[in-house]
C-alpha cells in the first residue's frame, strides 16, 4: 500500500473485510475495478452505518438488489421482505464490526452507530467530501453490489504503515472465549 493516501488505504482494508465476509458466506465475489456507472436497480436495498474515531468520522453505505441480499442471507429458505431489510442492517453491522477489528491493529479505535436500512430505487451513491463517484463494487455471480465509504479525516492524521501483530489482540471473527 506504499504511496497510497489514507483514504485509499482505508478503502482497501474495507474491501478486504468484505471479501472475507463473502468467502465465509460461501460466495465467490470479484472486485470490479475501473470507473463505475451507477447501478440501475429496481427493488433494491440500501443499508448505512456511521462510525468514528478521534481521527476521523465515516460511514459505510451498501447498495444492492433484493435478490442479492436474499442470496447473502444466512437462512435463505425463510426470507421475507422484512427479513431482507433486517439482514441488510446486519450485513453492514458485520462489515463495520470486522472493519473495526482490523483497524485496531493500526491503533484506530472506532465507535459504531446503529445500522439502518431502506428500500431503494434508482439510487446513485456519491460523496459530499470527494470529487468522485466510484464505490467499491463487487460482482457476485454477475450481480453487482456497491459499497461506499465516506471519510472525513482529521488534518495531519496518518494511518500507520503496517498493522501490529494479530490485530492488537482483537478476537477473530467466529471465535469463542470463555471467562
Amino acid at each position, binding site marked *: 500500500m506504499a504511496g497510497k493516501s489514507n483514504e485509499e488505504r482505508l478503502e482497501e482494508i474495507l474491501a478486504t473485510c468484505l471479501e472475507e*465476509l463473502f468467502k*465465509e458466506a460461501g460466495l465467490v465475489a470479484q472486485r470490479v475495478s475501473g470507473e463505475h456507472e451507477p447501478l440501475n436497480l429496481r427493488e433494491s436495498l440500501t443499508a448505512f452505518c456511521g462510525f468514528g474515531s478521534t481521527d476521523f468520522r465515516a460511514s459505510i453505505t451498501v447498495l444492492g438488489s433484493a435478490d442479492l441480499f436474499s442470496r447473502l*442471507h*444466512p*437462512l435463505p429458505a*425463510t426470507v421475507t421482505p*422484512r*427479513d431482507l431489510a*433486517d*439482514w441488510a*442492517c*446486519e450485513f453492514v*453491522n*458485520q462489515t*463495520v*464490526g*470486522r472493519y*473495526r*477489528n482490523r483497524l*485496531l491493529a493500526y491503533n484506530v*479505535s472506532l465507535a*459504531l452507530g*446503529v445500522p439502518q436500512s431502506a428500500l431503494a430505487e434508482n439510487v446513485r451513491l456519491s460523496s459530499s467530501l470527494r470529487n468522485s463517484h466510484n464505490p467499491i463494487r463487487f460482482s457476485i455471480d454477475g450481480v453487482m453490489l456497491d459499497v461506499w465509504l465516506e471519510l472525513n479525516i482529521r488534518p495531519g492524521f496518518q494511518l500507520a504503515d503496517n498493522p501490529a501483530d494479530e*490485530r*492488537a*489482540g*482483537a*478476537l*477473530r*471473527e*467466529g*471465535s*469463542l*472465549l*470463555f*471467562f
Partner: protein
Amino acid sequence: MGSKTVLIVDDSLTVRQQVSLTLKAAGYNIIEACNGREGIEVVRSGAPIAMVICDVNMPVANGLEFLETIKGDAPAPPVPVVMLTTDGSPELIARAKRAGAKGWIVKPFQSDLLLSAVRRIAGEAGL
C-alpha cells in the same frame, strides 16, 4: 435439557432467527428481546432463564448496559450471559468480563460453536 430456556437479546431479527433455530433444534426454549431494555424487563420478570445470549451494539440500551444492570439487580448470582457481537476489541471484552459475562463470541458464528457454549453455560446454571 429441553426444559431450559435461553433469552436472546439482539436487535437483528436475522440473528435472533439464526440463534433460535440452532437452539430450538437442540431442545431449548427461547425468549427473544430486541434490545437491552427489553432484555432487562424479561430478566426482572422472573422468567426461569438458564442463560442469556446478548448482542453488544443495540439501540435503546446496549449489551454492556444490559449486563451491568442485571448484575446490579441481582441479590444472588445473576443469570449467566454470553455476548454475541461483531466486536472483538480487548477493551470491550475486558469490560464485559468485569461485569460478569461468562463468554464472548464474535459474529459471524458457527452453529456448533454456539451450541457448545450454550450447553456448557446453561448446563452450569442448574435450572
